[in-house]
C-alpha cells in the first residue's frame, strides 16, 4: 500500500517515513514478507491482520452529525458544546474545510488565563494530525498508539473534512467485524461470507483489493475436504479473476487441502488475495515429511488403501500443486509439520510449470 501518514504540521517527533516503517514492520511484513507468510504462531492472528488491512478509516469513522464550531465562535461556546455532548475536543470547520481543533486542554488554559470569551481561532490548535478516509484501519490504530489524541479528523482526497474517528468508533466496528468473522469460521451462517454479486465484483476488480481467509482442515474428514478450495474458487470469481487462473489456484488449494486431510494431523489453508497475486498457504501440525524431494515426485505416496478407495493417494498432490503455481515453496520438519506455499501472478495469467 502506498498510503503515507498525513501530518498537517507538528505532532510526533518521528518523521512520516519512520512511522510508516514502524507500521510496515509490525503489520505488513508478516503477511507479505519473505519466507512463508502463514507462520501465524506468533503475533496477531491472521484474521485480525486481515481485518486491519481490509477495513478502511471511512468504514469506522462517524460521518454524520459532526459536532463543530466556526472560527468566530467563542471558547466558552466550544466549552459548552463539549460539555453537552460529553466530548473532549471539537473541530473548527467552515464549509467542509478544517481550520483547527479546540481540545479540553485549550479550554482549561482559557479558563486559567481568562480568555474563555475569545474566539476559537485565537487559541485553537492548528498543528493537526489527520487521517485519510482510504487509509487501512491499521493506520488509525497506529496513530492512536503514537499520539495522545483520543480522536482524529478524517479528510478525503480533496482535503475536505468528511468524518471524525475515535477509539470507541474503532472498537465498535472491530467488535462487529470480529463477531462476523468468528461466526463464519465456526461455520455459522453469515451474510458476510456469501459470494458477492457480479456487479459488485466487477467494481471491486478494478480497485486495490486485499482479502485473506483461513480454513481449518480436520484430519481424515473427507466429507468436508474440498470446501476450502470451493470457497477460494468463489472468492476468486467474485473478485473478477479469469477462469483459467481460478482453475489453477483451485487445483492447488484442493490438492493441498486433501493432503492435509489424509496425510497430516490436521492444519489450515490460508488464502490471500490482492490485486496482483493470489497465495495459498497450507500448514499442518505434523508429522512432517522425511524426504521432501521424494514426496515431490509424481506417483510417490504413503497413502493407505482407505485413502485410495476415496480416489486419492495417487502421489500427485504436491507435484500437481507445483505444476500449477508460479511460485512453489515447501518446508517440512519431522515431527512438527509441513508448510507449503503456492503463489499465482494475477497480472500474468500464463500457464505455470512450478518454480
Amino acid at each position: 500500500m502506498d498510503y503515507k501518514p498525513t501530518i498537517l504540521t507538528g505532532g510526533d517527533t518521528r518523521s512520516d517515513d519512520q512511522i510508516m516503517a514502524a507500521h510496515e514492520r509490525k503489520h505488513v511484513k508478516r503477511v507479505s514478507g519473505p519466507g512463508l507468510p502463514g507462520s501465524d504462531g506468533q503475533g496477531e492472528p491472521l484474521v485480525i491482520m486481515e481485518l486491519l488491512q481490509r477495513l478502511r478509516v471511512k468504514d469506522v469513522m462517524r460521518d454524520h452529525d459532526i459536532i463543530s464550531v466556526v472560527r468566530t465562535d467563542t471558547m466558552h461556546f466550544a466549552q459548552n458544546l463539549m460539555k453537552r455532548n460529553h466530548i473532549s475536543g471539537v473541530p473548527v470547520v467552515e464549509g467542509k474545510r478544517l481550520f483547527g481543533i479546540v481540545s479540553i486542554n485549550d479550554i482549561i488554559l482559557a479558563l486559567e488565563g481568562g480568555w474563555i470569551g475569545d474566539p476559537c481561532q485565537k487559541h485553537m490548535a492548528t498543528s493537526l494530525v489527520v487521517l485519510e478516509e482510504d487509509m487501512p484501519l491499521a493506520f488509525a490504530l497506529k496513530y492512536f498508539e503514537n499520539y495522545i489524541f483520543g480522536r482524529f479528523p478524517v479528510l478525503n482526497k480533496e482535503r475536505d473534512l468528511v468524518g471524525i474517528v475515535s477509539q470507541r468508533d474503532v472498537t465498535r466496528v472491530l467488535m462487529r467485524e470480529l463477531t462476523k468473522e468468528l461466526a463464519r469460521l465456526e461455520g455459522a451462517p453469515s451474510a458476510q461470507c456469501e459470494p458477492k454479486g457480479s456487479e459488485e465484483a466487477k467494481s471491486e476488480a478494478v480497485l486495490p483489493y486485499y482479502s485473506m481467509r483461513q480454513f481449518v482442515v480436520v484430519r481424515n474428514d473427507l466429507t468436508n475436504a474440498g470446501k476450502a478450495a470451493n470457497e477460494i474458487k468463489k472468492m476468486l470469481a467474485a473478485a473478477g479473476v479469469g477462469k483459467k487462473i481460478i482453475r489453477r489456484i483451485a487445483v492447488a488449494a484442493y490438492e493441498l487441502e486433501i493432503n492435509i486431510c489424509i496425510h497430516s494431523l490436521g492444519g489450515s489453508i490460508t488464502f490471500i488475495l490482492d490485486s496482483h497475486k493470489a497465495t495459498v498457504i497450507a500448514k499442518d501440525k505434523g508429522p512432517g515429511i522425511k524426504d521432501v524431494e521424494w514426496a515431490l515426485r509424481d506417483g510417490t505416496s504413503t497413502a493407505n488403501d482407505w485413502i485410495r478407495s476415496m480416489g486419492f493417494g495417487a502421489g500427485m498432490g504436491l507435484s500437481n500443486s507445483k505444476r500449477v503455481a508460479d511460485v512453489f515453496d515447501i518446508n517440512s520438519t519431522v515431527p512438527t509439520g509441513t508448510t507449503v506455499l503456492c503463489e499465482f501472478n494475477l497480472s500474468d495469467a500464463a500457464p505455470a510449470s512450478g518454480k
Partner: protein
Amino acid sequence: MNINDIVKTLDGTLVAGGESDRTVGTVVANDLMSDVLLNDGDDILLLTSLASDQAIRTANIVGAMCVVVHNAKPLPQTMCQVADTLGIPLVSSPLSKYDSCVRIHDFLKSETGA
C-alpha cells in the same frame, strides 16, 4: 453432446445437480481424482466409478459439466447434496466405465461425422 444425450446414450438417470445446457468439451474417465485435476480440458464429462462427495468436489474444481457414476453404484445422499449445491449434473449409469467410453466415443464420432 448435452446432458440429455449423455443420459440417453448411457441408459442413465439424472439423479442430482439439475439440468444444464452445457455440452461436452473433453471426456475424462478416471477414478483417481489427482489425475482428473491434471487435465486442462474445458467442459469435462467425468466418467468415474468413485461414488463419493470428492468426485463432485473434484469435478467442481475443474469446472466439469457432468459426472457419471457407473455400474449402478448406490450414490451416497451427501454426494447428491453436494451435486445439488454445486449445480453439477450427476448421472447414474448401469454400464461399466469401459462400455460408457465406447458409447460416448461412438456418439461423438457420429456427431462430428468423422
